């Protein structure tokens, strides 16, 4: 593209391209700045020394919020519940969703359109409606709200995302590899474990991580179906009405640093690998 611009004969066109490229870059930089502004506030205020119950205005630097963030009453148990539900629900949703994705891509069966619709529907349903309908179900069945109902809800909203993510990976899958394995005497089961699964593993992992992230962050659906159980977002919600402790910022900052660190590491590894495979061995 750059080459094409440089071969254009008129100088005016080149300088116009130059200006435009920089306008775009400035715009993109501003957009990124906008995205990070609230995060900067979250991190900054984790070092704030709030005078009252609320952590809204800057009072002075302190490290005390970082000393024992989990010591704040109720916070550690809320985080524990969030992590447990995220791990369990992402595992179950990933297993169920991967099976659906495999079936959808592999087998032509009647009613595929309906199955696709059933997977698409939860993604286009507003969260309040989904939360409310689940509550209507649990009330109708007389089910006690709590850990189990949150778990059920999280698996539900995660399945669709898993199906979509794994399907994307499966579409570019070369079936000849499986046929080759079968020709070499592997049965279907062995072929699946030794060939299919390793090849689609990146898609499954990505889906699992997405499900985990969605689960940890979910507030609305959980709020409707939690009963007396408190997850981390529910804890923040409760705190927002009474008092927002700076420890919440500490936890927010920690989640951010861990998630970004993990993703950065992943990108670095991929880049190194790409460079290594690009250079002649």
């Amino acid at each position, binding site marked *: 593209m750059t080459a094409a611009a440089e071969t254009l004969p008129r100088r005016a066109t080149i300088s116009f391209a130059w200006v435009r490229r920089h306008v775009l870059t400035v715009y*993109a930089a501003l957009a990124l700045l906008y995205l990070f502004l609230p995060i900067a506030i979250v991190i900054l205020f984790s070092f704030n020394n709030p005078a009252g119950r609320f952590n809204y205005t800057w009072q002075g630097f302190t490290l005390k919020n970082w000393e024992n963030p989990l010591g704040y009453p109720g916070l550690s148990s809320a985080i524990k519940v969030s992590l447990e539900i995220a791990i369990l629900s992402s595992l179950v949703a990933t297993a169920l969703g991967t099976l659906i994705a495999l079936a959808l891509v592999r087998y032509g069966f009647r009613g595929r359109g309906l199955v696709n619709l059933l997977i698409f529907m939860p993604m286009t349903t507003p969260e309040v409606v989904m939360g409310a309908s689940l509550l209507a179900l649990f009330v109708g069945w007389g089910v006690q709200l709590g850990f189990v109902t949150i778990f059920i809800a999280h698996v539900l909203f995660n399945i669709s995302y898993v199906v979509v993510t794994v399907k994307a990976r499966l579409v570019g899958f070369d079936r000849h590899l499986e046929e080759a394995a079968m020709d070499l005497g592997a049965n279907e089961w062995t072929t699946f474990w030794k060939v299919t699964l390793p090849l689609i593993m990146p898609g499954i992992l990505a889906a699992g991580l997405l499900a985990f992230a969605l689960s940890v962050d979910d507030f609305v659906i959980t709020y409707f179906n939690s009963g007396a159980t408190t997850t981390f977002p529910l804890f923040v919600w409760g705190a927002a009405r009474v008092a927002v402790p700076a420890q919440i910022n500490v936890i927010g900052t920690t989640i951010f640093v861990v998630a970004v660190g993990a993703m950065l590491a992943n990108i670095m590894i991929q880049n190194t690998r790409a460079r290594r495979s690009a250079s002649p061995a």
Partner: protein
Amino acid sequence: MLFPGLAWLGIFFLVPMYYLGKTSLERGLFPLFAFQWAWSNFHDALSLYGTQFGRSFEYAGVATAIALVVSYPLAYWIAFRGGRWKNLFLLLVIAPFFVTYLIRTLAWQTILSDDGFVANTLRQLGILGADGRLLATSVAVVAGITYNFLPFMVLPLYVSLEQIDVRLLEAAQDLFASRWRAFLRVTLPLSLPGVFAGTLLTFIPAAGDFINAQLLGTPRQYMIGNVIQSQFLAIRDYPTAAALSFVLMGIILAGVLVYARLLGTERLTGG
């Protein structure tokens, strides 16, 4: 293979919808409701809460439009100028959203607060009156909604822009199309699927949201999500809440279908 997953979706998505529908036609006071084909619930819900419905779609529409304006150039820049660092820039876009939704919204409370930097600057510039506020206004709520659903806009836009074959643009320029014209006739039409997906993925959660109105607004900014939430969880008028939920879902479904048709035909004629 399909059975376990579909069973989960059936039991916990379709069956609840049946219960929600049944509840919406019930009458009575908590906890005693009786099924009565009470269609009047729908009529009452719409006449009582029409304002909040209108406001939800207004806020969601404005937020989606702003998100598109912010996201398109950013996605474009990453897709065409990102080079080797595309993934890194993409990470930068998603990274802020690893801070819990509610914490991000609370951060906006701080940013827009009455004695905050933004409000003070706007007052000094005379844009905001001497006792003008940002927090607790519709501006704050729309700002919060726009920010909170931004990745849903950026990612589909990026995916569709990234897939565009650069040779098509070079061909357009070889045929003496200006850069702007090449953009309008080649890039933009090819990125429409991303625009379609992005606006839907932003608009739907935005229309059903109640957190931003609750944390950044006042009851005068409440959206339909706030009403459904309080009818269900505080007032416990399940039938009204269920009727409201159904209307919201119905409007969104109808909107999605119309929108799909509009954009579909536009692509046929304009592409």
